[in-house]
């Protein structure tokens, strides 16, 4: 058969026969989207990028909560009779086609007046006329073209967000002042004792002074505040010498122009602050489309269907749920509160909470916990507890979630700055003491010169530029770190803890093994045909894993809930399901999921499901075992123990049946005995462990969907590169250390001028930017070199 891919979404469409407009589609949904676009002349969508679309999902009833005016109001950014503005997060935004189609939404519905995409944040800001188009219909329209927005409890009443732009303002002020002061100070640097210069230099100097005032009191204020805070808690952080240098620069320069002894160092002052802020700005680059701070709120729905006492359905906010309410949970919806099942069959997927991959069946009267996802049909439940008091949400009351890891960590820069500050202060005092005895008039000049020239601008820039660039390089390899200090911490770890399900195993893939008497081809095809009728997840996965066979039409198909299925074909009968169901009494102790088969009432054998481990797992563990303690903490049972022992290095510790709190405590215990822990997990059940560890990395099959709060997100496809990422972090630290050495050379040169009392403003004006720029160049080139090496390694594997 000829290989075809879907024109809309790019999935394989060889096995289906959906042709429209000479184009092949994988499903009716994709075809419908194409029809919508071609009817509205929007087919350029497919020219910009090949197969850019997503299959629209079934959303019947899912957005009924948008009928509730109170919920809608909390989502809107702007609201009046004629216009409403809303910003929606759409995870599917990934290419230029997406931008194009979303910004041409008005072609699909004239009530939409404008739509603006922010590609980085994956959001679209839509203004529309609510008289003709309700928010619910807008969301439905977006969903129908494959751009389903994601609305969660997190969006609740964040309509009017305040963006913090103070850094860019400060940078702007410093840059503006720096440029102007430079021009104003040039005449005196090139002074040729001309008549007019003598006349105007005072004016020039006072102008420079007035430009530098906002730099010191506005742009540099963070350095003064941070230095003050550091000193208060008895830490000599890098901001102490910076603040000292900036203060001395400003005071000495002002004194110089008041007393008419010189031009002052205003240009160096503004330049220093400008470069420092530039470093901060560079390091600040974050991945705005990723969220590292997710808690349960980002997973929870914003509205839920309540069944009122008059048996009518009503959408209410999740926060308005009260004890005793009757709720309707639809297929694929998340249960937001602890409750009791009243009506319907529940199959709940608790993988969010526990990490256990198997869904569990519940009967009416059973208790359901918040965080579970209903997998088949609708159920009705009675509420036991409100949202904040439910089992899952209580995990977030652990204080580990309110701690800031960054604050607790002493960065390399701050570690060195302590020694640096002490050294500088002693040099300053010794030199001053020396001059006091030889030439007292120069003493003050020398003292201030030392503090000015030693201002550790280059040292302060080394880390931001190295780590900021490293963040970008990692980002290209699909390893997204929250901030620069994560890379520093990653270089220091000595223990690596892995979660099992979803972390070292691939989520969707399993392998099967068959044990028992061999099945004939006819029997296998009978088995497969029977499985075809069942919707049970195990039947579905077994069906997918069995070889291709002719499908026979079976008779007397019957499904026994919670036990298994049976069917007849001519004279043969088959039973598939649990051991007791198929009449197999000698059930041996197995912990793996297994499906048993019997034909004509004789037991044949069982299919056992195994997790499939990620590619390169064994190799990765062997690379890591030399330098790190390796541990696997799994929430699952120990069914895979034997398999893992074979696969992984002998010294790897394996622990099973670990509850979320157990994982957290295990890490805490090891940290107390001096371990620096890297935790790698994936689900909400690892959230505590990820927060407790020194570095928590969340593995994600698709970085656009959710991962728990963590320090970094790693795309699952690059899981086997973990060792290279750790190695690159260590290289980054080495680069920073070399930059320190380089900047110390500049400092020594500067100190020579300062100590001998010959520091002229022009020397400072040359030396300070020169040292900063060469550090920036050095770190950029060397980090790019390291980045190239990673890229080559990734390409090789």
């Amino acid at each position, binding site marked *: 058969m000829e290989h075809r891919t879907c024109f809309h979404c790019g999935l394989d469409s060889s096995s289906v026969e959906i042709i429209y407009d000479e184009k092949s589609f994988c499903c009716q949904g994709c075809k419908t989207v194409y029809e919508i676009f071609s*009817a*509205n*002349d929007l087919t*350029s969508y497919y*020219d*910009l990028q090949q197969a850019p679309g997503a299959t629209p999902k079934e959303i019947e009833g899912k957005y009924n909560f948008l009928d509730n005016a109170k919920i809608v109001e909390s989502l809107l950014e702007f609201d009046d009779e004629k216009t409403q503005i809303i910003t929606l997060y759409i995870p599917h935004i990934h290419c*230029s086609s997406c*931008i*194009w189609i979303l*910004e*041409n939404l*008005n*072609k699909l519905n*004239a009530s939409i007046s404008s739509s*603006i*995409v*922010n*590609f*980085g*944040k994956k959001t679209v800001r839509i203004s529309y006329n609510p008289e003709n188009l309700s928010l619910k219909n807008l969301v439905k329209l977006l969903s129908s073209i494959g751009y389903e927005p994601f609305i969660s409890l997190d969006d609740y009443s964040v309509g009017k967000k305040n*963006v913090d*732009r103070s850094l*860019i*303002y400060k940078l*702007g*002020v410093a840059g*503006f002042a720096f*440029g*102007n002061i430079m021009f104003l100070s040039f005449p005196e640097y090139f002074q040729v004792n001309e008549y*007019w210069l003598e*006349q*105007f230099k005072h*004016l020039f100097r006072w*102008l420079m002074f007035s430009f530098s005032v906002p730099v010191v009191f506005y742009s540099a204020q963070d350095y003064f505040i941070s230095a003050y805070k550091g000193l208060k808690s008895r830490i000599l952080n890098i901001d102490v010498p910076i603040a000292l240098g900036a203060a001395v620069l400003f005071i000495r320069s002002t004194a110089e122009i008041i007393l008419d002894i010189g031009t002052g160092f205003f240009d160096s002052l503004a330049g220093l602050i400008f470069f420092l802020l530039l470093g901060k700005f560079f390091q600040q680059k974050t991945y705005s489309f990723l969220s590292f701070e997710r808690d349960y709120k980002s997973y929870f729905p914003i509205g839920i269907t309540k069944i009122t006492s008059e048996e009518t359905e009503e959408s209410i906010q999740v926060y308005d749920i009260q004890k005793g309410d009757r709720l309707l949970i639809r297929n694929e919806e998340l249960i937001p509160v602890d409750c009791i099942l009243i009506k319907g069959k529940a199959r709940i997927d608790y993988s969010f909470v526990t990490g256990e991959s198997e869904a569990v069946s519940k009967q009416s009267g059973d208790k359901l916990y918040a965080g579970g996802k209903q997998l088949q049909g609708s159920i009705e439940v009675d509420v036991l507890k409100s949202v904040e008091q439910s089992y899952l949400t209580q995990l977030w009351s652990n204080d580990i979630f309110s701690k800031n890891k960054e604050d607790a960590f002493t960065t390399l820069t701050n570690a060195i700055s302590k020694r640096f500050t002490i050294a500088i202060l002693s040099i300053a005092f010794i030199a001053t003491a020396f001059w006091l005895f030889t030439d007292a008039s120069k003493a003050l000049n020398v003292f201030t010169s030392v503090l000015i020239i030693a201002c550790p601008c280059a040292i302060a820039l080394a880390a931001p530029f190295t780590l900021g660039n490293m963040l970008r390089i990692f980002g290209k390899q699909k390893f997204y770190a929250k901030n620069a200090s994560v890379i520093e911490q990653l270089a220091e770890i000595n223990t690596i803890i892995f979660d099992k399900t979803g972390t070292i195993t691939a989520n969707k893939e399993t392998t099967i093994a068959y044990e028992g008497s061999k099945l004939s081809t006819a029997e296998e095809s009978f088995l497969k045909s029977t499985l075809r009728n069942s919707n049970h997840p195990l039947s579905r996965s077994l069906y997918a894993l069995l070889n291709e066979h002719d499908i026979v039409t079976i008779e007397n198909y019957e499904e026994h809930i919670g036990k298994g299925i049976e069917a007849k074909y001519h004279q043969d009968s088959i039973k598939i399901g649990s051991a007791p169901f198929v009449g197999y009494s000698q059930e041996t102790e197995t912990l793996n999921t297994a499906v048993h088969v019997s034909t004509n009432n004789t037991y044949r054998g069982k299919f056992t499901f195994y997790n499939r481990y990620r590619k390169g797992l064994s190799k990765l563990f062997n690379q890591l075992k030399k330098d790190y303690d390796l541990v696997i903490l799994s929430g699952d049972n120990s069914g895979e123990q034997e398999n893992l022992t074979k696969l992984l290095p002998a010294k790897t510790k394996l622990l099973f049946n670990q509850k979320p709190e157990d994982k957290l405590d295990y890490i805490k215990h090891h940290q107390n005995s001096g371990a620096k822990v890297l935790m790698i997990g994936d689900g909400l059940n690892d959230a505590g462990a990820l927060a407790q560890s020194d570095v928590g990395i969340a593995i994600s099959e698709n970085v656009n969907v959710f991962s728990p709060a963590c320090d970094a997100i790693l795309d699952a496809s690059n899981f086997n590169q973990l060792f290279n990422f750790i190695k690159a972090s260590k290289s980054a630290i080495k680069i920073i250390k070399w930059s320190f050495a380089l900047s110390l050379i500049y400092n020594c040169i500067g100190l020579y001028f300062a100590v001998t009392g010959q520091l002229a403003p022009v020397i400072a004006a040359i030396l300070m930017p020169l040292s900063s720029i060469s550090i920036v160049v050095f770190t950029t080139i060397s980090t790019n070199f390291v980045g190239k090496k990673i890229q080559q390694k990734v390409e090789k594997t």
Partner: protein
Amino acid sequence: MSVIYILLAISIIVAIGFFIAFVVAVKSGQYDDSYTPSVRMLFEDELVKEKPKKSILTKKE
């Protein structure tokens, strides 16, 4: 030489004018998203190319 006062005043006013323009630009959110506009800029052509064959029916207003 007192012309220098005028020149200085002008140059500083111009500089401050640019500075205000910068602040206004930041405030209006111009620096919030530095990627999308670079792509959006290229779309103008797409629409023009399409317009001739576009039926009046689907056109807005």
